[in-house]
C-alpha cells in the first residue's frame, strides 16, 4: 500500500464519520412521531401526497397489516416495472428505438430493482428506454430504499413502544423517507455530479467520427456516444444502496463517474445513509450509545477488510510477473492489478469502492470485481455473505444487524443463565426464532442456489473463466442476489432464462421473507412491557458487546461459507502463488 492509498482511505472514513451525526439528527427529525420544525414545514406537501394517493394516515397498523400493505406496495411496483419494460417499444422517450425487454430479463430486472438488489443481467445502454429509466428504474431506486427505511422505523417502534398493538403507518413511513431524505439528498448530489461531467439530458445517442480511423476495414470509423438522464438516476442509485448502473460498466463508465471527486462523493453516498441511520436509531430508542455501538461493530469489520482489499490489489497480479511489465506504484502510475480498473481511480479507489459497495448492499462497481486478485475478490464476496449488515442496505442493513444483535444477546443470556434483554425488551423464543430465520435464510439461499447451479448444465453454460475462478463466479452471483447486493463477477453470462428466473426468485425471497420476519419481531416487541435495567442486564453499548456482536456475525458467516470459499477464491489464491 502507498501513503496516498492510506490517506484516501483515512479521508473517506473521516468525512463519513463527520456526517453521521448531522444527517442522523436530521433523519430523526424527519421520522419523529411528534411534529417538529421540519415536519411542520413539509406538512402541506405531505398532506397533498396523501390526498392524491388516497391513503389514510390517521390509522395505526398492527404488524400484519403493515407487512401486507408494504408487500402490496412492492408488488404493485414490480408489476408496473415489468409492464413498462415489456411495453417500452411502443411508448415515448425511446430515441434509440429499443424494443420491449424479453420476458425473463424483464422479470429479473423488476424483482431486482423493487427488492433494492439492482442485479443487472442486461446492458443498460442497449436495453432500457429513457422512459423505463425514468418512470421505472429511477422510481424503484427511491421506493426500494424507502421500503428499507420503513421496515427499520417499524422495528425501532417495536423497541420504543410498550404494550402496544401497532407499529406505525406504512404509507407515512414510505412517504417521509422519500420526501424528506432521499429526494432532497438526490437532487443535491445529482447536480454536483453533473458539475463533474455526469450527463443529464434526453438527447438521442450521438454518432461521431473517430480521430484515427481503424486499420481493419470491418471496424467502424465512428463511435456512438450514449446519452440520457444519467445524473438523476446515479444520485439515488448511490444514496439508496441500489447500485443499478445506467450503463453496463456502471460507475466505471466515465459518463456515470467522470472524476476522482465524483468518485469520492458517489462512494461516500454508498455508506452515508446506512451509517447515519445508526445515529438515528440511537436517538429514537432514547440512548445514542446504542447507535454508536452498532456503528463501531460495522467499522471493526469494514476497516480491516478495506485495508486487505487495497493491499491485495496494490500487490499486482503474480501471473503477469516476468513479462516486462511495471506493476509498482510510483509518482507516475498507480501500478498494481489494473485489469478491469480505470486510470483515474487507480487501486485505492477501486478497492475501497469494492469494499464499500459490498459492505452496504449497494452493488454498484467502479472496477470489475471478476478481474480482482483472488484475495482482493474474496473481500467483496465475504462482505456480502456476512448478510449485508456491515452498513448494509438503507434501512435493511441496520434491521439485519439488529437481528444479529438479538442473536448476540440471546447467546450472552445462555452463557450467564438469564433471560436476555435488548433495549428494555425481553428476548424470548418467538423473537429468537424470527431473528434466526432472518440470519439464516440468505445463507441457505446462497449455499443451495450455488449447489443447484453448479450441478446443472444451464448453470455452468455461462461461465466466463475456467477452474476455481469459475466456481467463484457462480458463488458470487448467489451471494449477491441472496443478500440483495447486486454486484457481480460479471464474466458469468446471466442473461439466460435459467439465471434470470432462479436469481429473480432468490432476490424476492431474500428481501421479503426477511422483511416479514423483522416486522413480526417488531410486532412482538411492541406488545411487550418495558423491563427496567437491572444488575443482570447485559449492557449493549459497551466494547464487550461490540466484540460479542462482531463475533456472532463472523461466526455465522464463517461456519456457513468457509467450505465454499475454500473451493473458490482460496483455491485460486493457493494455485496462483504455487506457480
Amino acid at each position, binding site marked *: 500500500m502507498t501513503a*496516498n492509498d492510506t490517506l484516501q482511505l483515512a479521508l473517506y472514513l473521516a468525512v463519513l464519520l463527520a456526517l453521521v451525526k448531522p444527517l442522523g439528527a436530521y433523519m430523526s427529525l424527519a421520522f419523529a412521531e411528534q411534529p417538529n420544525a421540519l415536519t411542520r414545514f413539509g406538512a402541506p406537501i405531505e398532506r397533498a401526497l396523501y390526498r*392524491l*394517493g*388516497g391513503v389514510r394516515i390517521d390509522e395505526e397498523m398492527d404488524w*400484519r*397489516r403493515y407487512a*401486507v*400493505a408494504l*408487500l402490496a*406496495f412492492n408488488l*404493485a*411496483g414490480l408489476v408496473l416495472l415489468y409492464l413498462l419494460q415489456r411495453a417500452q417499444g411502443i411508448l415515448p422517450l425511446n430515441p434509440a428505438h429499443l424494443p420491449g425487454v424479453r420476458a425473463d430479463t424483464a422479470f429479473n430486472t423488476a424483482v431486482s430493482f423493487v427488492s433494492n438488489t439492482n442485479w443487472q443481467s442486461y*446492458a443498460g445502454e442497449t436495453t432500457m428506454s429513457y422512459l423505463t429509466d425514468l418512470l421505472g428504474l*429511477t422510481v424503484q431506486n427511491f*421506493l426500494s430504499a424507502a421500503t428499507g427505511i420503513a421496515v427499520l422505523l417499524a422495528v425501532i417502534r417495536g423497541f420504543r413502544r410498550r404494550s402496544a398493538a401497532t407499529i406505525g403507518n406504512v404509507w407515512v413511513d414510505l412517504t417521509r423517507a*422519500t420526501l424528506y431524505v432521499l*429526494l432532497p439528498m*438526490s437532487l443535491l448530489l445529482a*447536480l454536483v455530479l*453533473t*458539475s463533474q461531467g455526469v*450527463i*443529464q*439530458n*434526453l438527447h438521442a*445517442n*450521438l454518432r*461521431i467520427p*473517430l*480521430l*484515427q480511423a481503424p486499420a481493419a476495414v470491418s471496424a467502424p470509423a465512428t463511435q456512438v*456516444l*450514449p*446519452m440520457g*438522464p444519467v445524473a438523476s438516476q446515479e444520485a439515488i442509485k448511490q444514496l439508496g444502496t441500489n447500485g443499478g448502473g445506467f450503463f*453496463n460498466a456502471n460507475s466505471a*463508465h*466515465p459518463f456515470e463517474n*467522470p*472524476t*476522482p471527486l465524483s*468518485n469520492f462523493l458517489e462512494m461516500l453516498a454508498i455508506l452515508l445513509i446506512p451509517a447515519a441511520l445508526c445515529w438515528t436509531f440511537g436517538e429514537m430508542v432514547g440512548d445514542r450509545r446504542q447507535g454508536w455501538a452498532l456503528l463501531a461493530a460495522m467499522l471493526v469489520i469494514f476497516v480491516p477488510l478495506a485495508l486487505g482489499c487495497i493491499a491485495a490489489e496494490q500487490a499486482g497480479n503474480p*501471473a503477469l510477473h516476468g*513479462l516486462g511489465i511495471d506493476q509498482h506504484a510510483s509518482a507516475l*502510475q*498507480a501500478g498494481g*492489478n*489494473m*485489469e*478491469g480498473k480505470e*486510470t483515474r481511480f487507480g487501486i485505492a479507489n*477501486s478497492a475501497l469502492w469494492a469494499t464499500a459497495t459490498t459492505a452496504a448492499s449497494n452493488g454498484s462497481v467502479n472496477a*470489475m470485481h*471478476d*478481474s480482482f486478485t*483472488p484475495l482482493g475478490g474474496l473481500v467483496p464476496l465475504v462482505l456480502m455473505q456476512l448478510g449485508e449488515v456491515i452498513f448494509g442496505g438503507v434501512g435493511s442493513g441496520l434491521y439485519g444487524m439488529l437481528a444479529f444483535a438479538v442473536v448476540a444477546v440471546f447467546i450472552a443470556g445462555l452463557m450467564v443463565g438469564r433471560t436476555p434483554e435488548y433495549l428494555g425488551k425481553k428476548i424470548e423464543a418467538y423473537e429468537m426464532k424470527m431473528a434466526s430465520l432472518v440470519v439464516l435464510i440468505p445463507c441457505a439461499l446462497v449455499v443451495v442456489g450455488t449447489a443447484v447451479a453448479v450441478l446443472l448444465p444451464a448453470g455452468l453454460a455461462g461461465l*466466463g473463466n475456467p*477452474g476455481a475462478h469459475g466456481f467463484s463466479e457462480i458463488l458470487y452471483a448467489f451471494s449477491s442476489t441472496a443478500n440483495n447486493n447486486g454486484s457481480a463477477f*460479471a464474466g458469468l453470462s446471466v442473461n439466460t432464462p435459467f439465471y434470470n428466473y432462479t436469481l429473480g426468485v432468490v432476490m424476492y425471497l431474500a428481501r421479503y421473507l426477511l422483511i416479514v420476519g423483522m416486522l413480526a419481531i417488531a410486532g412482538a416487541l411492541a406488545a411487550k412491557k418495558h423491563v427496567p435495567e437491572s444488575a443482570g442486564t447485559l449492557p449493549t453499548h459497551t466494547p464487550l458487546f461490540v466484540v460479542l456482536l462482531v463475533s456472532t456475525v463472523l461466526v455465522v458467516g464463517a461456519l456457513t461459507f468457509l467450505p465454499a470459499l475454500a473451493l473458490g477464491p482460496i483455491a*485460486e489464491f493457493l494455485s496462483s502463488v504455487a506457480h
Partner: protein
Amino acid sequence: MMLSSLRTELAPALRLLLVLTLLTGLAYPLAVTGLAQALFPYQANGSLIVHDGKVLGSRLIGQPFRDPRYFWSRPSATASAPYNGLASGGSNLGPTNPALRTAVVRRIAALRAADPGNAALVPVDLVTASASGLDPDISPAGAAYQAARVARARGLPLARVQALIDASTRNRQLGVLGEPRVNVLELNLRLDGRWLTSH
C-alpha cells in the same frame, strides 16, 4: 385472510405508487435536467469537444489509436470493436485465466513492435483492459513510455511532446483524490493542433 387483506391494501398501494412515481420518476429527473442544462450545459451534454462546428469526441470517452504518431489509449475489451460506446465493460478475465496472460503478451509485443529501441518496463495500465472499456486516460508513466516513439514518428523534439503531455495531465483532484492521469484524446488533438484551450 392474508389474501383478502392484500386485496384491501392493493388499491391505496397502487394509488400512492402512482403519485410517488410522478414525484420521483418525472418531477425529480426533469428538475435535475432543467437545472443541469441551465447550470452545467457543457457537462450535462457529454463534455463534447467541438472544433470548427464539428464534434470531435467527448473529453470523457476514450478512442482507440494504433498509429505510432498518436499516443495509444489503454486496451479496451468492449464487444465487437474497442471503445464501442454502446458496449461499455471490462474483460472480466480472472487474474489466473491463461487468456489474460495471452492478451497481455500480445499487447506488449504490439507496443514493442511500434517502438523497437525501447527497453523500458511497460507500465501496467498500457497492457490491461480498463473497467469501462472507454477509459479516456493513461497514467503519466504510460505517456512517458510512448513519448519518444511519438516524437520520432512526428519529427518533433521530445521536449515539445513532453510539454503537450504536461498540458494534458490532471493531477490528483484537491491534491489527494484519485490518481494523476493523461487524457489521451486531448493529447492527440494537441499534437494535431486541433485542441482549443476553451475545451
